[in-house]
């Protein structure tokens, strides 16, 4: 098993190299140079050229790419063109907000999604099942910013219970959490329901019933674990997505997360920030996928033995 994990970690390296190259290449195609950006429009051409030279911007793309990668290995992502501060520091300063948002939303979405999904499957075609399905459909269809704005209207403006913007204590996160969790909760609920319905019809569930086992234990001990694989997949993908893709929510609630950092950086053509943040998020995503695959092995012994044989 540890051999498998090591192997997977090693395959991360070429993946990340490719990601860095693509990001680097695309950013290179965009117009503008760091000299102009840093010194401003009014600086003389000589000053700008000198600055570009100093930053190594005039060297060919492959050379810059190799330099970037060697610096990255040392933990250096370069400096922001805008603020001049190290990119690594800028991202790390914003990371807690994004991680708090993503973890909270995932927890809410997973717990509620799985519970409602199980109930829906066990009581198939009941009133509860129909209403849960309808609500899930609605939650998945409304765009996040709309749900966010409605929540702000209700809880911040009319009721005045919760703050509508800014980061700080956890109170600030409640509305963003709910907003972010909504579509995720819906997909998690649908996936759990479908997967449970499939498993409940399996022969081994009938075997458990024939043993005289209680229905609650059949659902929790036999069915749920078997239904978990697709649920874990959705969880991993969504979590990875949330770490990078909460831009709208961060904007609606003016939370200073990584998403808004990237948006600002794109707007100001701050290439090092965009590249650095993208590389960071791509690594998170790849590691999460690895975690999902390892979780598979813990859930399903058949997958574990397949990993071990390799």
């Amino acid at each position: 098993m540890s051999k498998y994990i090591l192997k997977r970690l090693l395959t991360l390296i070429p993946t990340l190299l490719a990601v860095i190259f693509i990001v680097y290449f695309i950013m290179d195609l965009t117009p503008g140079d760091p000299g102009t950006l840093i010194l401003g429009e009014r600086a003389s051409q000589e000053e700008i050229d000198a600055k570009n030279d100093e930053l190594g911007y005039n060297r060919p793309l492959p050379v810059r790419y190799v330099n970037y990668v060697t610096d990255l290995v040392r933990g250096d992502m370069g400096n922001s063109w805008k603020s001049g501060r190290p990119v690594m520091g800028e991202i790390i300063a914003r990371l807690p907000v994004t991680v708090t948002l993503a973890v909270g939303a995932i927890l809410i979405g997973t717990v509620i999604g799985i519970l409602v999904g199980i109930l829906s499957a066990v009581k198939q075609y009941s009133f509860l099942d129909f209403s849960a399905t309808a609500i899930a459909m609605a939650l998945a269809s409304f765009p996040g910013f709309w749900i966010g704005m409605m929540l702000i209207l209700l809880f911040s403006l009319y009721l005045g219970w919760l703050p509508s913007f800014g980061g700080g204590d956890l109170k600030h996160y409640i509305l963003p959490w709910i907003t972010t969790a909504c579509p995720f909760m819906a997909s998690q609920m649908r996936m759990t329901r479908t997967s449970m319905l499939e498993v409940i019809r399996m022969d081994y569930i009938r075997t458990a019933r024939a043993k005289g086992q209680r229905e609650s234990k059949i659902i929790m001990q036999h069915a749920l674990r078997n239904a978990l694989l697709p649920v874990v997949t959705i969880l991993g993908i969504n979590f990875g997505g949330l770490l990078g893709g909460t831009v709208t929510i961060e904007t609606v609630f003016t939370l200073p997360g990584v998403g808004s950092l990237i948006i600002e950086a794109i707007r100001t053509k701050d290439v090092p920030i965009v590249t650095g943040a993208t590389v960071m998020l791509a690594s998170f995503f790849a590691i999460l996928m690895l975690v999902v695959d390892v979780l598979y092995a813990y859930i399903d012994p058949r997958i574990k033995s397949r990993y071990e044989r390799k």
Partner: protein
Amino acid sequence: MDHTTENMIENTEKILEVENLTAVYNTDAGVVHAVNGVSFSINKKETIGLVGETGAGKTTTALAIMQLLPERTGEVKSGSIRYRGDELLTKNKAEMRLIRGACISMIFQDPMTALNPLMTVGEQIYESLAIHNSNKTQKELEPRVDELLELVGIPARRKINYPHEFSGGMKQRIVIAIALACEPLLLIADEPTTALDVTIQAQVLNLMDELKQKLSTSMIMITHDLGVVAQTCDKVAVMYAGEIVEYGMLEEIFDPKRPHHPYTIGLFNAIPSLTGESRRLKPIDGLMPDPANLPEGCRFHPRCQECMERCKSGEIYQYENGTHKIKCNLMRKGENDGRAD
């Protein structure tokens, strides 16, 4: 009381009596009449074979006894199922749970899918014990898990393995160990060997027979294989379209000199004989009728070669000669000499 009389009393104790059992499936396509007025009984240590084609209602009968019919669609319409004189159909879910696994166990057709792939076989056998021995600790039950595995011929050290690490025949042995864990008085085996290859079939059947003797379990053997019936059963019920068309002791059903239902004769003609001269196998023409739309009169009449006008509607004659019962109009004239010509 001497040994023989004691044995007789023991052997005539009725373990299960099924009377006029009618079960249906309510589907979108209509009501499927899967079991229509089936009656039979099993004494202690006795094995009854339910024989018939796919769709004859054998499995539905078994699931009705276990009350494991699909919850939304399956329904027992009428009849009575008594376990040692105790009516099962009026029991609630909690009471039925105490019966299942402890008093009546079931072995399912496909061992490949009957075991939970994510639990070790030891855990699955243990579960069966733990449900009905809640007063005992895991430590007290664990030796019994080992014992059960050894009983079905699997080394106890393999209890930490998962189902995918066993062959089909071994999986079926584990399923048998689970079913016998609490030493039930009645074992329902639903085509226990159909999914296994022929050499393993014999092993599994021998094992079941051996364990049945050891634990004095009664058994309902559901099969379409007359060879299996001959090897394991005391009594036979031949089922067709949800009815028992012929019922009797093994010797009566397998005796060619006695009268038989045309369907039973058809079944026997459809198996090859190793000893007799080789002849063409005679399959039964036609297909099992659609259980959502059963024919009037005798259910078998559209396929029966000796079908008469009176078979197409109305009540069908019930022939009885001791323990031998046949539901067929052909038996009417042979009532006195016991032969149908």
